[in-house]
């Protein structure tokens, strides 16, 4: 479904992503783990078109999306929940969700809203509230719900557990599993490697812009080097 080959991304002359290749098959949960500054967010931003790579190719559903603008990429079914949520703080919860459906026909919005409210009853209760007044966990739910409003086939999540209490992290991961069960393929970026690997099919380990390991998630959970570096021994 997604095929990335020899991707190189620069910030000025900082070489942030070095010759990375990976792939995601329909129906998988794939996770990218790595320490701060490894380049995880940079990869997602490049996939969604916010950043341009210098060389390499990105194929999504057999289409070259490499030179597409972000709005065309969203339309093709690739949605991105950015790190730090980035909800529209001064807009209401419902307006945020409507923005998520920006590329879709207005007649399709109402049924999608119902679907999202079923998944996130908390958002329904707070639909008229401005997003800035939500708690961190609720904002994460909103950011995810908003991305789902575009009906993506591949959902990319950048550190959804960041800054949340353990109980909320459990909830967020349950929702990710639910979205996956309903047919969405998932690319999950996490620093919480334990959680990410526990729900993923496969994982890639990223170190300073390079993929250093790639294996089924179960194997990574048992890998000594990975346990030392990312799972606290």
């Amino acid at each position: 479904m997604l095929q990335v080959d020899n991707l190189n991304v620069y910030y000025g002359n900082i070489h942030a992503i070095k010759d990375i290749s990976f792939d995601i098959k329909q129906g998988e949960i794939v996770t990218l783990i790595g320490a701060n500054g490894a380049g995880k967010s940079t990869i997602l931003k490049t996939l969604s078109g916010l950043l341009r790579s210098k060389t390499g190719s990105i194929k999504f559903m057999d289409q070259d999306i490499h030179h597409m603008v972000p709005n065309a990429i969203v339309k093709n079914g690739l949605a991105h929940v950015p790190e730090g949520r980035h909800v529209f703080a001064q807009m209401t919860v419902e307006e945020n969700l409507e923005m998520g459906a920006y590329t879709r026909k207005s007649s399709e919005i109402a049924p999608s809203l119902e679907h999202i409210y079923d998944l996130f009853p908390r958002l329904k209760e707070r639909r008229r509230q401005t997003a800035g007044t939500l708690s961190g966990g609720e904002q994460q739910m909103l950011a995810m719900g908003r991305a789902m409003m575009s009906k993506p086939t591949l959902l990319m999540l950048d550190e959804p557990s960041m800054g949340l209490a353990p109980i909320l992290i459990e909830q967020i991961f349950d929702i990710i599993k639910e979205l996956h069960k309903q047919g969405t393929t998932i690319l999950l970026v996490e620093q919480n490697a334990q959680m990410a690997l526990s729900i993923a099919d496969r994982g890639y380990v990223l170190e300073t812009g390079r993929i250093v390991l790639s294996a089924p998630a179960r194997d990574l959970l048992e890998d000594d080097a990975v346990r030392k570096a990312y799972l606290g021994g």
Partner: protein
Amino acid sequence: MLFISQLLNGLQLGSIYALVALGYSMVYGIIMLLNFAHGDIIMIGGYIALFSIASGVHPALAVVMAIVGCMLLAMLIEKAAYKPLRSAPRISLLITAIGVSMLLQNVAQLLFGAGARSFPSSSIINAQNLSFGGIQISITAIVTIIVTIISMLVLTFLVQKTKMGKAMRAVSEDLGAAQLMGINVNHVVSFTFAVGAALAGIGAILYCCRYPLVSPTMGSLLGLKAFVAAVLGGIGSIPGAMVGGLAIGLAEVLVTAVGLSAWTDGVVFAILIIVLTFRPTGFFGRSMMEKV
């Protein structure tokens, strides 16, 4: 008695400032540009109305032509001058805006001459005053205030309820997230310039009805004062531009009413300095922290 006509007078002037200030604020909200060419759009609007009425076009149609002309010009300027600089440092954008402003003034001077031409205001609004038991009420003032209120209502609806308006708010809050929603930022920017210019076009007509003279530099002082109004209200804020405009208009009239008419411009710029010193976010401005 005098108070009421002065109040109307202030509201009239303030309405015009508010209409023009909105264009500054909306554009700033979207691309963080202080569009100093905005005042000169007004001047072009004035000339379009002037020439079309002079050549026999029905005044109502002339007004529409002026508004549409302002919109097209603003979109053209955005595409040609600002869009290529979207990722350049903000100072380059600002300098470009000043350059565009000078270009417009000089082209107008070349084409239409440096002198002021008189504007046929009476063919747009019948300029007679009503008199109620000694109170002089200017019809032009009443029409200006009503047209402004209607424009504000339409704008509020547009921004709050329409898809494009919501996209505008989304872009102004968080450009990156807005792109991830699939919003085409180029369309939103064009749209914002067009709406701002339409309001400026309306402002141009109303301004020419109050001061019926059109000249190549008529937009600079009006533009500057509207800019002060936008800053006073909080640059980037739509309600701020409305309130800021009215406040500046009323302040000017007040200064004139107490006999200091030579000081009106000075007072307006003193307000700018005071706001920038003590409350740079204005009445309704978001703090910079929130913006980042």
